[in-house]
């Protein structure tokens, strides 16, 4: 969805993303100058070498090979290396769910996973669920039911909601399930409990739940 925003911003205008990227470079240059100045007066610090390693995984059906700093999270590998900026960095500590992606069909927080842990995994991001021309039913339902305001948490909400429907179909219970051994059904209470790892500061929750209910046929 982020890529779409960029395309819509054509006609010679600098997009918000490009503007921010330009600012970041300017700030970095300033910081480097400052550090160089300090270093001239103080003893040199030990340089910690960057350790890199190779990883290969499939993202939205395409095989990707990366040589990356071992510290790179799956989230940063998607955003900074593969430029799939639909997946968002919110808290970067697994508390907000903005970074939710599907790995081998299961939703995880991509911020709390090293890219290196995903050798040969199959990853689906918001860009892989649907395209502007051919939206995933959950994307269409979010638009129809106004399931977002600022949109920042939306890719994570949509990936999570798609996975929740699959989890219910697979019979995985939740904290809201009355009987652990009964058939699992989509209800508003079930959906809300299962989505508690996706925070929306705009408070679009009730519309998100309506969107998911429509897709679930509930």
């Amino acid at each position: 969805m982020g890529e779409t925003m960029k395309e819509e911003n054509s006609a010679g205008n600098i997009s918000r993303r490009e503007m921010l990227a330009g600012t970041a470079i300017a700030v970095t240059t300033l910081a480097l100058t400052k550090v160089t100045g300090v270093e001239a007066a103080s003893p040199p610090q030990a340089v910690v070498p960057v350790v890199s390693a190779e990883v290969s995984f499939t993202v939205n059906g395409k095989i990707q090979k990366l040589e990356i700093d071992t510290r790179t999270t799956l989230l940063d590998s998607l955003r900074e290396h593969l430029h799939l900026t639909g997946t968002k960095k919110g808290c970067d500590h697994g508390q907000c769910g903005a970074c939710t992606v599907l790995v081998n069909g299961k939703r995880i927080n991509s911020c709390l996973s090293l890219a290196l842990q995903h050798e040969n995994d199959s990853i689906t991001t918001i860009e892989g669920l649907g395209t502007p021309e051919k939206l995933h039913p959950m994307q269409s339902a979010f638009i129809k039911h106004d399931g977002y305001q600022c949109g920042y948490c939306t890719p994570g909400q949509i990936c999570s909601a798609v996975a929740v429907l699959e989890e219910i179909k697979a019979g995985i219970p939740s904290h809201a399930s009355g009987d652990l051994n009964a058939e699992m059904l989509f209800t508003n209470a079930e959906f809300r409990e299962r989505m508690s790892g996706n925070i929306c500061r705009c408070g679009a929750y009730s519309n998100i739940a309506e969107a998911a209910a429509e897709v679930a046929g509930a």
Partner: protein
Amino acid sequence: MKSFTYQRVTTPAEAAAAIADKPGAKFLAGGTNLLDLMKLQIETPAHLIDIGRIGLDKIEPTANGGLRIGALVSNTDLAADPKIRKDYGVLSRALLAGASGQLRNKATTAGNLLQRTRCPYFYDTNQPCNKRVPGSGCAAIAGFSKQLAVIGSSDACIATHPSDMAVGMMALDAVVETINPAGKTRQIPISQLYRLPGKTPHLETNLEKNELITSVVLPAPVGGTHIYHKVRDRASYAFALVSVAAILFKDGSGKIAIGGVAPRPWRVPGAEKLIPSGAKAFAAKLMEGARPTQDNKYKLALVERTIELVLKEGKS
């Protein structure tokens, strides 16, 4: 995050041997807690041994009618396993009361047992913390301690163990199985896995250096009514203020462990003969020796009332 080298291993024995060769190395399983702590530089391993693909991801029957849960079974898969749901409901309920769907998909059984405290002073690297920097002091005792321990704590540390799953396993008398770098295996009852902080809160378990948990064994089903009741500040996705894991039998007896109150899941088997006498008598014995702060003395009343609720639910 501090720079580190990274290695994948393929068997438990290879994992245990690999860690012995590398000073400053840690095992990486799901990573949901370790990576978070590495970002904050509370954990700074020089080397990570990724054990994500060494097997240990099955739940299998044991010879005496119990279940052996592989250390790498995810929290989701464990909670959803038909045998766990049917015969060990307290464990399924405890798991589902913890974390979020995304985290449960990634978090592992052994990783859940070994997760670190969420004490805010452990997380704030500007504050003294005997668990994070031994000997530096404890900022929590005179700080905001509403969430923290009321029993089993010490003058050096009042952190709680954050797991829900471990509370369920404590009520179920689970046994942890391990392997060490020499290839030697052993069994540790979960009641003996965790240390109380005393003067050394940085030593949290009785695992030896470089010992790897390979599985958790549940004894044969004991029947009874299984209940996990968690009290927290919001309805979902929050750590427990108090939680009660209970297996209650028709004759009025039971097994009860408490979460959110101590540095480990809190269970006093000697107090359980008082369960038939009701919540007040049982809770008084269970929480004997409690040393709450002004901020968290409410937990003692909350423990008693939550037990009362659970005992009522067990009878209905």
